[in-house]
C-alpha cells in the first residue's frame, strides 16, 4: 500500500510518501495508526493522539473504523486549514 504524510505528521515521521506492506493483523484505519505508532520515536510522536489526525483512503475522507487493504493509498494529516 501507499502511505502519505502531510504537515506536522510528515515532519514528525520524517517521511512524506512510502510503499508499505499492510501487516496481517491490521484491518481498520485505527489499527493501522496503532501499528504505525510502534515504528519508532518519530512515528510514536506523530500518532500519539489519533483524535487530532484526519485520514483519507484512496483520496476520500474516512472515519477511523474504515477498512484498509493492501492496494490502498492512505493519507494522514491534521485538520485542514486552507482558504
Amino acid at each position: 500500500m501507499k502511505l502519505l504524510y502531510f504537515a506536522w505528521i510528515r515532519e514528525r515521521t520524517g517521511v512524506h510518501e512510502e510503499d508499505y506492506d499492510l501487516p496481517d493483523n491490521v484491518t481498520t484505519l485505527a489499527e493501522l495508526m496503532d501499528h504505525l505508532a510502534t515504528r519508532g520515536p518519530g512515528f510514536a510522536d506523530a500518532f500519539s493522539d489519533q483524535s487530532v489526525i484526519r485520514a483519507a483512503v484512496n483520496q476520500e475522507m474516512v472515519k477511523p473504523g474504515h477498512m484498509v487493504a493492501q492496494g490502498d493509498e492512505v493519507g494522514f494529516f491534521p485538520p485542514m486549514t486552507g482558504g
Partner: protein
Amino acid sequence: MSVRVQREDFDPGQELKDLLAGRRDIGGTVSFVGLVRDFTDEKGVSALTLEHYPGMTEKALLKIEAEAQSRFDVQETLIVHRHGRMEPGENIVLVIAASAHRGEAFRACEFLIDWLKTSAPFWKSEDGVDGPRWVEAREADDTKAAAWQD
C-alpha cells in the same frame, strides 16, 4: 465549473473576464479573494507556506463545486487555490460564483469558501518571530461549514 491548484499568482480581474467571456445569461457575480495577512493572534507573520495533497485536492474542490451547483442556482463557479510560499499581501485563493440572480451568487460564494476551508486538503504554516508554526484549525470555521448542513 472549474478548479485550479497552482503555485503562481492569479489576477482576479482577468479570471472574472475570462469566466464571463461570451456569456449573456449571467446577471451577477460574487467573488471572494483570500489574502496573506501580516499578523495572527497579535503576532507578526512574515510569510505563509501552503502544503496540499496533490490529486486529492483537485478531487475535493470538484466535489465542493458540484455540491454548490446542486444547492444553488448558479451558472458558473471557479475556484483557484495557490500552494507554496507566499508573503503578506499576496493572493491565496479566489472563489467566483455567477448566477442569473445575485442572491444565489452571494450564497454560493460563501458556501464555496466555507466548505473549502474545512474539506479541501490544504495546510498553512506561518513564519513568525518564533519560527515556522502550523496553523491550527479554527472552531469558528467548523461551525460555519456545519451551518450549511442544516
